[in-house]
Structures are given as structure tokens and as C-alpha cells.
């Protein structure tokens, strides 16, 4: 990333953070993640949203429709952020921006955004053990961002900007596969 881009994104993130409570900020991040994952999983919607040849108004309508379908009561900052990206033709960089979000929060706000990828939704109580561990290890406050992947076998995966915990069933099955191959 060049310095100009970094400055733009930093000012955007700063405006979100400075105008909101930490809880509200985390909510915005979660909403953005949800929308980002949904767009990434639906190629056709992604194509229309990122196609700069399409009319901006139509693209905005599609984006708003998508947001309202996904979120019951979306935060106005989430909407403003997404509309800003769309108008500036930066929506195709959403994946990268979300990735950069993690670095920003870890560096500037002492907040570790941890993605929780699981087949079924997991409650905070189940994850509290891991939250405590990550907070102790990284000396940062942890906020979970949940993503459910129905194709997963089971278990979960925790992923943050510089590490991950893989507690998926797939990993365990792959271990069995390795044991058979290596005849251990």
C-alpha cells in the first residue's frame, strides 16, 4: 500500500472510530465483515457492484438492497462507508480494506479483530476461553467477528492479522490422513 492510500483509509477509519463508542465501532466492523463476506460469496452481486460501467445509482440501489437484506438495522456509518467506497470506485478493494482494518485496529486502537469461522454460530461463552488466551498472549482487547460457513465439517477457526487457531474437524481428519500416509 502506498502512503496516499494509507492516509485515505486511516482518515476513514479514524472518522468511524472517533465518532462512535468502541462497542458501536465493533458493531460497524462486524456489519462490514458480514457484507464483505456476502459480496465475496455471491459473484453476480459482486460483479454488478464492482462494475464501474454500470450506473452508479443502480449500483447504490443494489448495495442498499443487499445491506438491508443482510442487516436488520444497519448503522449509518456502515452505509456511509460503503457508499463512499462505491462512489469512489473502491468497492473492489473491500477485501483488502477489511484486511487492512485488522492492522489498523491492532496498531491504533489496541483491538484485535478475530474472525471466527464455524459451521454453526458460536456464542461468546464458548469462545471466552480462547478470548482470554489471545488477550493474554497479544496483550490486546479481542473482538470476535463471526462467519458461518455451512460447507465446514465442524469445529471452528480463529483468524487474526498475525495468527490463527485451527480447531476444525477437517484438520483432525487431515491429521488422520497424514498418520495413514506416514505410517506413524
Amino acid at each position, binding site marked *: 500500500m502506498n502512503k496516499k492510500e494509507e492516509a485515505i483509509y486511516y482518515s476513514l477509519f479514524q472518522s468511524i472510530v472517533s465518532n462512535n463508542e468502541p462497542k458501536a465501532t465493533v458493531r460497524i466492523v462486524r456489519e462490514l465483515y458480514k457484507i464483505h463476506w456476502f459480496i465475496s460469496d455471491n459473484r453476480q452481486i459482486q460483479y454488478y457492484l464492482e462494475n464501474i460501467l454500470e450506473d452508479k445509482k443502480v449500483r447504490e440501489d443494489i448495495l442498499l438492497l443487499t445491506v438491508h437484506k443482510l442487516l436488520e438495522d444497519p448503522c449509518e456509518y456502515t452505509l456511509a462507508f460503503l457508499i463512499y467506497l462505491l462512489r469512489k470506485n473502491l468497492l473492489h478493494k473491500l477485501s483488502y480494506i477489511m484486511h487492512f482494518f485488522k492492522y489498523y485496529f491492532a496498531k491504533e486502537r489496541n483491538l484485535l479483530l478475530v474472525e471466527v469461522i464455524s459451521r454453526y454460530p458460536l456464542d461468546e461463552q*464458548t469462545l471466552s476461553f480462547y478470548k482470554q488466551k489471545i488477550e493474554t498472549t497479544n496483550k490486546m482487547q479481542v473482538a470476535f467477528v463471526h462467519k458461518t460457513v455451512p460447507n465446514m*465439517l*465442524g469445529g471452528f477457526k480463529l483468524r487474526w492479522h498475525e495468527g490463527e487457531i485451527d*480447531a476444525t474437524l477437517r484438520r483432525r*481428519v487431515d491429521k*488422520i*490422513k*497424514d498418520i495413514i*500416509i506416514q*505410517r506413524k
Partner: protein
Amino acid sequence: MGSTNYLLILWNLIAFLLMLIIIRYAIWPKLFYYIEARRKKIESLQSSYERRNKEILDLTEKIKEESLNASERRKKILIDTKNECTTMRKDLIHKAHMEASSVLDMARLEIKKEKDKSFQEVRQDVSVIIAKSIKEVLYNIVDEDLDKRVIEEIKKVVTSVE
């Protein structure tokens, strides 16, 4: 008949003496020269013959000696060659044995490698099939409750490791 003709005797004597003088001064020196030359020639021929003869004898001796030496050498060469051939034969046999054993070792190694490879491939295929089957079965049987139980089990394992 009984009278002696002294004059005739004298004349005969004079003739004889004249003949002697003529022979002494006219014929004898040339004859002596020829005889001497012939004698010298014969002597030189004889010495040459003796020299040649000696040379021939020497040569014969030398040839005999050479022949003996050659025979010795031939015998020695034959023995050496025989020894060398024996050593070479032994070396060749040893080398052939070594090569054969090396080829056999290589073949054994190759067979072992192929065998291991085949086993590995079979094992890999089997492991992939098993993993796929397990995944398929798990995907169908894992519901929300089971998933929670699995997560609890994983947590217990993590806690026990710590």
C-alpha cells in the same frame, strides 16, 4: 774314349756359372719378389681367415649366450605373463563379482524403492478415500449439538495439553 775332354768340361762349367750368375742377378730377384709377395698374401689371408674364424667363434659364442639369455627371458616373460594373466583373471572375476553384486544391490534397491513407492501410493489413495469418507460421514452426522460437543472436547484437549 778314355781321354778326357777338359775343354768341354770347362765350357760346361763356364756355361753353368754364367747361368748361375744370370739366374742370380736377372731371374732370382723377380722370382724372390713374387714368392715373397705370395707369401705375404698367403699370410695376410691366413691372418684374415684366423680373425674371421675368431669372429665367427665369438659370434657363435655370443649367439649361444644370446640364445640362452633369450630362452631365460622367454621363460621369465612366460612366467610373468602367466602370473599377470592369473592376476588379471582374478581381478576380472573379482570385478565381475563386484559388478554383479552391485547390479543385484541396485536391482534390490530399485525393487524396494518401487515397492515402497507403490505402498506409499496405495497408502495415499487409501488415506484420501478414508479422509473423504470420514468427511462425508461427519458432514452428514455433525449437527449443532454434536458440533458444540466437539468444540468442548477440543477445549478439554487444549486445556490438558497446557
